[in-house]
C-alpha cells in the first residue's frame, strides 16, 4: 500500500492532491504515517514504530491506523490498484 505518486506532502502537515485539487491537513503522527506509506512501509512496521515511540497500546494503534488508512482511501490518496 502506498500514497499516490503525484500527491504532494509538505513537512508542516499539508497534503495536496493535484488530481482533485483538494488539500488536507494532517496531525504530526498522521504525517509520520503518510511519510512511511509514501516509502511503502508495511503497516505492521508502522504499527511497531508507533508502539515504540508513543504512549499507547497495540489494540488502539490497530484500530486508529485502520481508520486512518480508510480515510486516506476515502480521499483517494492511496494507489487505486492497492488492496488493504
Amino acid at each position: 500500500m502506498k500514497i499516490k505518486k503525484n500527491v504532494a506532502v509538505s513537512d508542516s502537515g499539508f497534503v495536496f492532491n493535484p488530481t482533485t485539487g483538494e488539500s488536507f491537513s494532517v496531525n504530526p503522527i498522521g504525517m509520520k504515517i503518510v511519510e512511511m506509506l509514501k516509502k511503502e512501509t508495511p503497516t505492521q512496521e508502522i504499527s511497531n514504530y508507533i508502539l515504540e515511540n508513543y504512549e499507547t497500546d497495540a489494540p488502539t494503534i490497530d484500530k486508529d491506523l485502520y481508520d486512518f488508512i480508510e480515510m486516506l482511501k476515502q480521499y483517494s490518496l492511496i494507489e487505486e490498484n492497492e488492496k488493504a
Partner: protein
Amino acid sequence: MEKQRYERPIIKKLESNMPNKFGMRTEYRPMTHIDNVGVKDLINEHGSPLFVISEKSVRDNIRNARKAFETRYPKVQFAWSYKTNYLDAVCRTFHQEGSWAEVVSGFEYDKAIHNGVDGSKIIFNGPDKTEDDLEKAIKNNSLIHIDHLDELYTVRKLAERMDIKAQVAIRVNMDTGIYPMWDRFGFNYENGQAWDALNKIMRSDVMELVGLHTHIGTFMLSPNAYAVAAGKMADLAIGIRDKYGHEIQYIDMGGGFASQNNLKGAYLPGTDINPTIDDFAEAITSALINSNFKPEKLPLLILETGRALIDDAAYLLGTVISNKRLSDGRRSTILDIGVNVLFTSFWYDHKITPAQPFTQHTEDTVVYGPLCMNIDVIRENISLPLLNKGDHVVIQNVGAYNMTQWMQFITLRPRIVMIDLEGNVHVVRERENLQRLLEFEKVPEHLKTFEL
C-alpha cells in the same frame, strides 16, 4: 527515550468555501482542575461520570446578583428556586447567603422545612398545591402564590376552617412583548383576570394580600421584557392602593434570567450574547423606581433567580468510552455521560473541555452518550480536540436542572460532590445502586420463581 503522548492520526480536508455546522474550534486549554482540585483525582476517587459543584462559585454568584440589585434598589430579597437544584447542600448554601426558599410542590415545601427554613420565608408557587399542602402553608404563614381560581377558593375555604388569615399573592401573567407568552400560569393582566382575583382576595376576611408575583418566561434574552413586566406589576400595586387603600409588601419578579449557556441554534456563544445579571437588574429596578410608587413606599423586590445563579457553578466529569467512524465518514465519540444525567443537552450545546493536554488539531465530531437509545446525543456537531479512549472531559454549565430532572434510565445516577471554600471535597449525594432501586419494587408471590 521517553515516549510521546499519543494522539490518534487524523486527516482533515481543508474547505475554504462554506462554513459547516460543526463550527470553529472552541477549546484552547484543558481543564485539569476545578477549584484547584485535580479532575483526574476526583474521578479516581469518586468514579465517572461525576457531578462537581463549586461552593465558591455558588456563593460568588449569589453575592454578585445581590450586589447588582441592592446597589440599584433599596429592598431586595432573593428566594432560592428549589426546582433548579434542590440538593440540600446547594439549598443550604443559598440559605446561608440569606436566600429564602421558593418551592412549587408539596415535596419541595417539605424539603425547605427539612432544611430549616422558617415557614414565613417559603414562597409557595405552582398550579398543584393539595389541600394538605395548603393547610401546612397557611399554618406556617408561608407566602402562597395563587395560580388559579380553584386554588383561591380552596385557600379561602381552608383559612375559614382553620381560622387563620392566609398570606397570599397572585401570580400574574402578561404580554411583555416576547414570544411565547406564558399565560398558562396565574391570572392574566390584560384581560382583567388579575383584577378579578385581586378583588376576590381584597373582599375576603381570611386572606391577606401581601404581594404580587409574576414569572414571564425562562432563559430570557431580553431584559426589556422584565422592564415591561415590572411596570405592569407596579400599576397593579398602585391600583390596589388607590382602590382599597392597601399597600402590598412585595413584588416578586420571579426568575427566568438566562445563564451563560449556549442555546441550541444560537449562532454566537452564550457568553457573548446572553444578558448579564446587571442588565436584568437595571431593567427591573429602573421600571419600579420610575413607576408611581413614592420613594419611601417602594415594595420589597423578590427575585426567584435559579439558573443564572447555579448553572456555571457545577461541572459534569466524564470519560471517553470509544471513538467510532460513522457510515458517512463523520467521527463520533462515545462518553459515559448520557442524556439521562445531562438532561439539558436537549436544549443546550454544552461546552465540552478535555481534562488533559491536547494539540491544536480537532475533528468534526458527534458526541454520544452510553445509552443504547438513539436519542442519547450530547452534541450533534462539535469541533472537538482529539480524545483517546479513557480520556476525561469536563462539561460546563450543568448546575441548573440536571440534578433535579435527571433520571435513572439504563444507567444509574452518579455521585455528586461539592468542593468547599478550602478545597475539601464532600460527597453531597451518593451514587445509586441496584439495592437502592430494588427497595421501591415489589414482586407478586406468583412471579417470584421461574425455570428457564
